[in-house]
């Protein structure tokens, strides 16, 4: 019996509250991150990812307190991202109880940061987040919540980040994020097939069928979703059952 594919609920956190935007705007409040994490843990989530979407200097202390509170109650892997720019940021999050950190724009500004972080803390805790948008016949990396193009090809970037020591790729389609029409499966498959490290598909989940597609057609090792779980449309358990009925190996 093989390794299970993972379902990872994602909490976008702003000033200590879970929020969910559509295309990174129109934010809706979805509760207390500690409560939400505990609920997902009980429902059988395989991991939890929490992204500090404002990542301001003042917000950092609040985030560390939130991570500490979650880590004391939730005994599955916890990834924290948003504003991770230095090895001190990584150390602070790991010390608070995070198991992995997600590095996004800091990797683009300084790819050697990924190498340094991986050597110091181990590849197992370094997730590189890639926000990609389709441009003509390929996908490019965008920063600043999808507003600024970088000209970097997403597939090439994923390969480079693997070579620099990333342990995992969190791949978000900025075209699909929040619009509930399903993952960008071509993007997901292009990246998943190009690297040998696990790829988490993100952006666009509107129903349970989309999760299964991410694995079966996108070749993702894990699927990440936020709003379908936050607002009680589906539970993690329902999502796992649905995926299992399609022949996907799940932890149930």
């Amino acid at each position: 019996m093989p390794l299970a594919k993972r379902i990872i609920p994602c909490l976008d956190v702003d000033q200590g509250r879970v929020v969910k935007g559509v295309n990174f705007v129109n934010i809706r409040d979805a509760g207390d991150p500690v409560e939400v994490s505990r609920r997902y843990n009980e429902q059988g989530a395989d991991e939890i990812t929490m992204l500090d979407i404002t990542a301001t200097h003042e917000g950092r202390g609040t985030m560390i307190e939130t991570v500490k509170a979650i880590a004391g109650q939730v005994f599955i892997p916890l990834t924290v991202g948003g504003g991770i720019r230095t090895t001190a940021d990584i150390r602070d999050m790991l010390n608070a109880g995070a198991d992995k950190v997600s590095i996004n724009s800091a990797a683009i500004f300084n790819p050697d940061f990924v190498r340094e972080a991986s050597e110091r803390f181990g590849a197992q805790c370094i997730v590189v987040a890639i926000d990609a948008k389709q441009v003509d016949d390929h996908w490019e990396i965008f920063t600043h919540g999808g507003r600024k193009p970088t000209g970097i090809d997403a597939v090439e970037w994923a390969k480079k980040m693997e070579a620099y020591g990333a342990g995992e790729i969190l791949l978000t389609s900025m075209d699909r994020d929040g619009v509930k029409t399903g993952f960008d499966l071509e993007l997901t498959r292009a990246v998943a097939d190009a690297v040998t490290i696990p790829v988490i598909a993100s952006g666009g989940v509107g129903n349970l069928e989309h999760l299964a597609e991410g694995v079966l057609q996108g070749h993702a090792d894990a699927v990440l979703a936020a709003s379908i779980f936050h607002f009680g449309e589906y539970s993690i358990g329902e999502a796992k059952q649905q995926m299992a009925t399609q022949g996907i190996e799940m932890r149930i």
Partner: protein
Amino acid sequence: MSIKLLTVIDYGMGNLHSVAKALEHVAPEFQIEVTDSRQRIAEADHVLLPGVGAIRDCMAEIHNQGVADVVSEVLADGKPLLGVCVGMQALMKGSDENGGIDCLRYFDGQVRQFPRNLTDENGLPMKVPHMGWNHVHQTVDHPLWHNIENGSRFYFVHSYYAEALEYTAGRTVYGPEFAAAVFQKNIFATQFHPEKSHIAGLQLLKNFTLWDGSL
């Protein structure tokens, strides 16, 4: 009832907070201390040897900080010792990682790299690291498996694995079959992370705190 002491050996390798928090959660009767103090480790009733990252760095710190001697004293005293992840690999004979590293030789197996050309049941390449929840098939009746269903899934994240030999307490298949857990006298060690493995993992940690080190 007196408070018992469980020390998590802090030799500078990685994140010990997760495991300390999980132990506090399952064993309120224990004082959990993350420490590099040889005296505190000597005073402890139970000892946990963690480890993450590259084996070269782990073994260097194990030697620099006298952890090899500490472990040998703990084992001679008959105290229960739990090794986790690279903490388990450090107890093996040696590792192929970083061009070949000698380890502590408590177990006679070699730590090897997952092959890069493995494919899964659908013909797709298998990813390395082996990251996520996989089945552990218990191969012995051991106090640390108490109340854990055989075949339960635990959370793994590793690129190197220990060969499954006679000391194996649990086996997992990811390409090759490897040692997910090993045992010998008062040592039990796991490749997976019990502190991240939800109900089954917390049960294993609870079992460890209840174990007196005998078989």
